[in-house]
């Protein structure tokens, strides 16, 4: 079931060192890449159907095209601010195969016409960004990067400092400019992101790490995996009440239950499966009954009322309290709201406080109504998708597990 495209070198010892990386195929895509015109590469990415793997799933090729077409000094920013609860895949790439990421960055920069790249790594990942830094240093020594390279690219690691919201691309860029991580107002027409007013491509670590395979083997090779609309593979993660938690790369479209059983080893301690949060905390929870049809691709999970997100599944067994689980997540949103716009700043805090009353089994029907009402106010009225995500989380729990909440009402 496991397919290794991005995770190919994960189990090779010392794969983060240049020698091991080189003898295991790293940087081999650069020769064919530099033989092509940048536009050809963008066309290959478009044809491959590569989708952003940070959670949104937008078509990567279109993003590249917009940045490539926009006048200005271009930047490529790699989003390694992986902070979505249940998500820990990018960390694997940073520490187990950093040269794959560097190779992907060089190819991406060449394709969109940039010479400067930043990797924004969440502050907590210091150990992993140190490994990445060593690899970058090695890549400079070997002239894959810097002035001596065939195509000049400079990579700088920029450490975050504890703010989930900086995973939102415009907040990330604000942070990279030396500001508080407040998301920016969204444009009304297709535009690139901007770093100090210059056109900028922001892609997730795994997205960039998928690029070398595609550019070396062609769009069709990538499309051989996955589904028509969700081509390729993804580093799906699994955690929670699961026997073998971890990151396992599989192609899009596999059955979720099969994934849980076959690669995740099934629910821990032989318990019954109660629910799964499919793609990081911000994707609405799905109860066991709905999982029979669940497949790991964008379309299927959307149709089930949830989303693929980051592909980080959180498994909950029969003993898990849904009230407690929602409280846990709302505390997270309360803690991580940037506080810029009203519905989110006040809504995440209020909903978290309301949940305390459920946890204490002192809630009233009015509390339940208020929770629904706050959730509605948080949805679709804010600058970024943080509050709508929190809203979706609340709605998911209340939709599928309402009875557990009713039991907490006095």
């Amino acid at each position, binding site marked *: 079931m496991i397919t290794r495209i991005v995770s190919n070198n994960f189990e090779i010892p010392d794969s983060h060192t240049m020698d091991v990386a080189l003898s295991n195929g790293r940087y081999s895509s650069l020769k064919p890449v530099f033989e092509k015109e940048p536009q050809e590469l963008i066309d290959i990415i478009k044809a491959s159907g590569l989708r952003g793997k940070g959670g949104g799933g937008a078509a990567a090729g279109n993003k590249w095209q917009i940045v490539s077409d926009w006048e200005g*000094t271009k930047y490529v920013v790699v989003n390694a601010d*992986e*902070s*979505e*609860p*249940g*998500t*820990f895949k990018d*960390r694997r790439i940073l520490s187990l195969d950093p040269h794959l990421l560097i190779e992907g960055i060089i190819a991406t920069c060449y394709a969109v016409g940039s010479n400067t790249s930043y990797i924004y790594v*969440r*502050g*907590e*990942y*210091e*150990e992993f960004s140190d490994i990445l830094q060593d690899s970058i240093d090695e890549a400079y020594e070997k002239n894959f990067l810097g002035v001596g390279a065939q195509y000049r690219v*400079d990579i*700088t690691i*920029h*450490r*975050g*400092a*504890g*703010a*989930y919201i900086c995973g939102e691309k415009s907040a990330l860029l604000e*942070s*990279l*400019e*030396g*500001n*508080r*991580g407040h998301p920016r107002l969204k444009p009304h027409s297709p535009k690139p992101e901007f*770093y*100090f007013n*210059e056109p900028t491509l922001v892609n997730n670590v795994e997205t960039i790490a998928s690029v070398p395979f595609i550019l070396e083997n062609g769009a069709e090779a990538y499309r051989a995996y996955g589904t028509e609309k969700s081509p390729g593979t993804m580093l799906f*993660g*699994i*955690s*929670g*009440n699961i026997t073998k*938690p*971890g*990151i396992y790369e599989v192609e899009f479209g596999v059955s979720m239950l099969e994934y849980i059983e076959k690669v995740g080893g099934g629910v821990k301690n032989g318990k019954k499966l109660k629910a799964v*949060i499919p793609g990081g*905390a911000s994707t609405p929870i799905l109860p066991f009954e709905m999982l029979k049809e669940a497949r790991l691709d964008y379309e299927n999970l959307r149709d089930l009322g949830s989303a693929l997100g980051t592909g*980080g599944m*959180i498994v*909950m067994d029969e003993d*898990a309290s849904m009230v*407690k*689980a929602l409280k*846990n*997540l709302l*505390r*997270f949103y309360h*803690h*991580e709201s*940037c506080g810029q716009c009203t519905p989110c700043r006040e809504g995440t805090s209020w909903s978290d406080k309301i949940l305390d009353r459920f946890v204490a089994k002192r809630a009233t029907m009015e509390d339940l109504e208020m929770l629904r009402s706050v959730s509605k106010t948080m949805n679709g009225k804010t600058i970024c998708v943080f509050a709508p995500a929190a809203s979706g989380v609340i709605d998911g729990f209340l939709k599928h597990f309402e009875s557990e909440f009713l039991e907490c009402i006095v």
Partner: protein
Amino acid sequence: MSFSYTQENSIKIASLLNRYPQKKALILPLLWLAQKQDSYISEDAMGHISEFLNMPYMHIYSVATFYTMFRLTKPQKRIIEVCRTLSCELNGSEDIKKYLDNNYSKEFEIIEVECMGACSGAPMCTVDGKYHENLTTEMIDEVLK
């Protein structure tokens, strides 16, 4: 007491200046270096950064207070961060927190934090920033000995 970066850090800063299109982008790296140097970010350090970047002090302060990893007061003890988010909670992070509180709160400041991206290693904590995953109480004793 005035703040200045060590020579080693000053060299780092000089090289970072070439890496960004505007000086202002150095705020986070400068705050990190100050914290590395002193274990926290003092008012003097922020004042130094403000002067170095020619930006209002308040901007530096406002940025520093946005990010939870920046410490603006000197820590009195070593720091343990326990992840409390869902995957860790499902795997007993609350018990880990209790165990730490009961046995190690004298020597360590024990803080609950949100998801550290170590969900497959739940429950987890960091000690002085280093990750420790798949925690058991025995393991805690071993690590903290």
